[in-house]
């Protein structure tokens, strides 16, 4: 009767059985027990105003729809408020699962440009939000040191932080292959 309606189906080859194993191994150990009750979606502040559905994300992860999940911009709408994690009747660490999925997405090269920018700032300054001129002035006016006593005021400390980020592979992850070779 209605020709425009098609039966929705999931291609078998899109389901990667190892995907959920990797999520479980990384710490979201109970994700397979999800009963699709939707409690997570119902308490989600982002879900209230966007099409992001935590329940759908959990289901797709369990089904192994790796590419679908990792490439989805929705993955980045979670504010990590942890409400769903507190409320899940199966005690699934939903928010942890989202962070695990995000780590996987970044490894696959899916990263929002603003997040890349923040990461580069961290790599450069040791702060995700570094000092600027306006706040230097404010600090002086308040009688605080113009530069806070953090990595901002300590070159050796900043070198250490950079060394750590190189060792964990963060520099390469954000800047790409060329970063691996430089000293």
């Amino acid at each position, binding site marked *: 009767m209605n020709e425009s309606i098609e039966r929705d189906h999931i291609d078998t080859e899109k389901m990667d059985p190892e995907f959920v194993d990797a999520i479980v191994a*990384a710490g979201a150990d109970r994700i397979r027990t999800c009963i699709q009750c939707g409690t997570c979606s119902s308490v989600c*502040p*982002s879900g*209230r*105003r*966007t099409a992001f559905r935590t329940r759908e994300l959990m289901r797709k992860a369990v089904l192994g729809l790796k590419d679908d999940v990792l490439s989805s911009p929705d993955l*980045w*709408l*979670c*504010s*990590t*408020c*942890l*409400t769903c*994690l*507190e409320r899940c009747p199966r005690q699934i660490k939903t928010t942890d699962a989202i*962070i*695990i999925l995000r*780590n996987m997405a*970044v490894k696959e090269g899916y*990263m*929002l440009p*603003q*997040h890349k920018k*923040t*990461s580069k700032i*961290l790599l450069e300054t*040791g*702060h*995700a*939000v*570094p*000092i*600027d001129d306006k*706040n230097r002035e*404010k*600090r002086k*006016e*308040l*009688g*605080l040191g113009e530069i*806070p*006593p*953090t990595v901002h*005021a*300590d070159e*050796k*400390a*900043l070198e*250490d*932080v950079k*060394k*750590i*980020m190189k*060792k*964990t*592979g*963060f520099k390469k*992850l*954000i800047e790409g292959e060329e970063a691996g070779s430089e000293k």
Partner: protein
Amino acid sequence: MMTEAQTMSLFLGCVMPNRFPNIEKSLRVVMPALGVNLEELEGASCCPAPGVIRSFSDPTWLALASRNLALAEKEGRDIITGCNGCYGTFKEAIHAVQEYPDRLKEVQNILKDVGLKYNATTDAKHIIEVIYEFGPENIKKLVKRPLEGVRIAVHYGCHLLKPSNLRPWKQTQRPTFLDEIVEATGAESVKYRDKFICCGAGGGVRGSNVSVSVDIAKDKLDSVHEVEADCILNACSFCHLQYEASQAQLNKESGEKKYQIPVIYLTQLLGLAMGIEPDELGLGMHMISTKPLLEKILG
């Protein structure tokens, strides 16, 4: 009356020293009066942020968080922080290495390269934890300027309370500890819709999906508006940023000035009640003017 003074390592993080030094100022002025001596944690970095950096590289997040903790451990002190995000990072990072010895070894290996030892013996506390230990009763004794008649919308924030199994609070639902501290000043903590919902800033949402983030904040601001509270009170530099910056943005978008709710940080409120001058507490440097509140308090 005095509980014994303790010395803690002040972890500043990013947002407080680099965007809201006025909050930092109030913290430095007020905490010693509550029995906490603050030592600088020199050379500390970003915590790093639990919603962004941890989302990109969990091992990097753990290594840098452990470095900050190791700096405090070297001094034999616990960390104190005034940001829910930093608090969450440290609590979760400590848990990760204590629960999984392999992860501790991994981190120790990395830190060895920069000459640091780390045994995961340092704790991290939120200012409100320490203030609550000092206690509402002791705060009442310090009040010189009772905030009678001031109606306050208290915002706890998410990472202060959750995950509840890694937090010290006895009440995991609808806690009251922050309200108790606020009411010790003589002010009233008012009920408002969705009090325990997220401010919308975390998880990298503010950075990447700012309209969604501001819309979450708008819901909360509207609830606060509805009950005609005199201000929003918070104890997190990132929630603070969210409420101040979102109001400014909403006003700009609409061309009206509907959102003018002063956003006050916990140590600013306590300082006011203790009779400290507003300028000493950085209250003249807000994005949303604190004037209506100050007029109500100072007359």
